[in-house]
């Protein structure tokens, strides 16, 4: 889900990084403010994150505990469906109770939000860190490092993450903490997209004149990377992370839904939904609440991510520019100008939740400099 196709512009004669003003933080905020949908999403997410952070406090205020079982609140004759309408909602249990166990659903949802968001955020962070490291190394570390790492990245991007994540969970001991396992699995499998974006960007930036100028001014590799490259990488990486986050939420939910992620009694939204297929007839409230919450959260993150992307890079919205190669080869031509034609690139989507696909790797993402042929 939250799949974003970033197609490269075909003519990448305009160098990247040089496309218009670099919006400062103020500019980004100004642009975000003009989008009501983004503001609303931001508001929803702020409330949600605050509630997740304050989950122990809020549950205590409600006088509940996510791990307190209430066998008396469920009807064992109906297979454990809660007594009463709306999933057993009452003054004590505001949103009803979990069928089968009678645990308080309000408390479960809040604590579930903690787990879901934490796992997604952790996985995103790990993906970004690994992706940055791999992408930068590939772009700056010489030809062989680039070949090797690009191949590995290709494989990582091509493989369906859900499948690998599921498979990997089999070889991990059962007592390993599940949320941490999810962060590791998702983080270590899902960095391919970030790495690609970083590599392509860095390669393009590296060929720009201001980098050459910095080198001429006596800046060493590290100084160039820190001063000239990283600031320009922040925007695309941030944008990409904003796409990854909701897709990671969905991935966690999907894994837990399949019974392979977070295991009870630890709650997460996906885990709560894992028994949904058996309960949606007897206790629809139990299914609808976590579903609704999950839907709203993912949607809000998606909308916000979209807005952040547009605000960070208004000119490049929905496109990823691929610039010229580091060393622009001049070839002897028959009286024509040399033109670098970037290939269309569709290489940087997040995976889809069901099949776990990423978007296609069509062509190479380093542009194929297509020198024209003289007739």
């Amino acid at each position: 889900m939250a799949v974003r196709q970033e197609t490269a512009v075909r003519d990448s004669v305009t160098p990247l990084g040089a496309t218009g003003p670099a919006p400062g933080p103020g500019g980004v905020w100004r642009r975000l403010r003009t989008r009501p949908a983004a503001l609303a999403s931001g508001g929803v997410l702020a409330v949600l994150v605050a509630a997740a952070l304050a989950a122990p406090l809020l549950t205590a205020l409600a006088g509940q505990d996510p791990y307190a079982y209430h066998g008396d609140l469920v009807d064992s004759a109906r297979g454990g469906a809660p007594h009463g309408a709306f999933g057993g909602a009452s003054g004590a249990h505001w949103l009803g109770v979990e069928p089968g166990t009678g645990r308080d659903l309000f408390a479960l949802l809040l604590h579930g939000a903690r787990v879901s968001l934490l796992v997604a955020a952790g996985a995103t962070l790990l993906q970004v860190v690994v992706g940055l490291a791999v992408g930068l190394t590939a772009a700056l570390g010489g030809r062989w490092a680039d070949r090797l790492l690009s191949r590995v990245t290709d494989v990582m991007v091509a493989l369906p993450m859900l499948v690998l994540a599921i498979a990997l969970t089999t070889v991990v001991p059962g007592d390993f903490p599940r949320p941490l396992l999810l962060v590791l699995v998702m983080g270590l499998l899902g960095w391919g997209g970030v790495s690609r974006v970083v590599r392509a960007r860095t390669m393009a930036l590296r060929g720009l004149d201001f980098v050459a100028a910095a080198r001429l001014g006596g800046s060493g590799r590290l100084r160039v990377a820190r001063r000239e490259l990283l600031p320009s990488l922040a925007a695309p990486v941030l944008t990409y992370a904003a796409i990854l986050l909701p897709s990671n939420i969905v991935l966690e939910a999907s894994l837990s839904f399949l019974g392979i992620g977070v295991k009870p009694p630890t709650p997460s939204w996906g885990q709560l939904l894992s028994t949904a297929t058996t309960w949606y007839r007897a206790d629809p409230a139990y299914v609808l609440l976590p579903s609704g919450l999950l839907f709203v959260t993912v949607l809000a993150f998606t909308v916000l991510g979209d807005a952040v992307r547009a605000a960070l890079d208004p000119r490049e919205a929905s496109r990823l520019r691929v610039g010229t190669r580091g060393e622009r080869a001049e070839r002897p031509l028959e009286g024509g100008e040399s033109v670098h034609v970037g290939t269309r690139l569709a290489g940087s989507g997040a995976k889809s939740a069901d099949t776990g696909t990423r978007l296609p790797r069509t062509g190479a993402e380093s542009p194929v400099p297509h020198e024209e042929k003289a007739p």
Partner: protein
Amino acid sequence: MNALLSGARFTAKRLVGAALVLLVLSVALYSLFYLLPGDPARLACGERCDPSQVAQVRERLGLDEPVHAQYAHFLQGLFTGRDYSAGTSVRHCAAPCLGLSHQNDQPVSTLIVEGFPATLSLAVGAMTLCLLLGVGTGLLSALRRGGITERVLTVLTLAGTGTPVFLLGLLLLMVVCAYLRWLPFPSYVPLAEDPEQWAWNMLLPWLTLGLFESAKYARLTRASTLEVLAEDHIRTFRAYGVGERAVVARHALRGALPPVIALGALDLGTMLGGAMITESLFGLPGLGRLLIGSVRDVDLPVVVGVVLVIGTAVVVANAVADVLHALADRRVLPS
């Protein structure tokens, strides 16, 4: 002719690349699953095995051999088949042999072949629906830019991308089957048995997966079309009095669709590897469900086998997508 040749070279190169990736993948998977913590023999034998039984299983599966020999046997089994001996009895596993299931001793390849029809049914139907819906919506919203149509479609698409597939499936099940009772709860009927029942029972899974995937295609098609429409050559044909319909049909689509088609090829490959969630949700006995079941049962040969098959489908689809893309836009080809 030259283009054809370089096209063939490109295709060959991509296929060789795909084969290499698969080889690497198989090594990685093999080492991951058979060398990491946890004793595969114990897992295969089950909880109640005593040490001597475990040793027996280990010998039978060849797990007492050195790692590279094990992998060599695995590869050999893949291409020529191999024999598993248990005491006096010998069990032959025909090529392509991916090993025997710990659970029921069936060859993994048999299990995979059994699961394939359901997966294929789901993939083809869902993909068709998804392409029709996604490309249609995307085009419409790109061409009606700025209108109310676009806004409605944008909201719908956004909601679509925000809906995890299992939520969509659950919702459809609840509404269509439980409340409206328009359809019975789906249960898989093989196509060969009863085509009509097959179609009725597949309808909901198709809708679920197709709708879910179509949001992505709608966004891609829209972005891609808008991008092409903004290009200079579109301006050229407009400036030469070519009608808007012809500009879109002949020039915009030609540029906008290749990435969509490439993505379609890729997704189809992935779906052929099994759409786990949809299959689980609707009880389709496909590859995805096979994988999840084997993970729950810690049935390593099945896990490795299914993952390899899925990997193959994806890698081949990737290569096909690349080649399709190169055919559509020959500038990608090295000269």
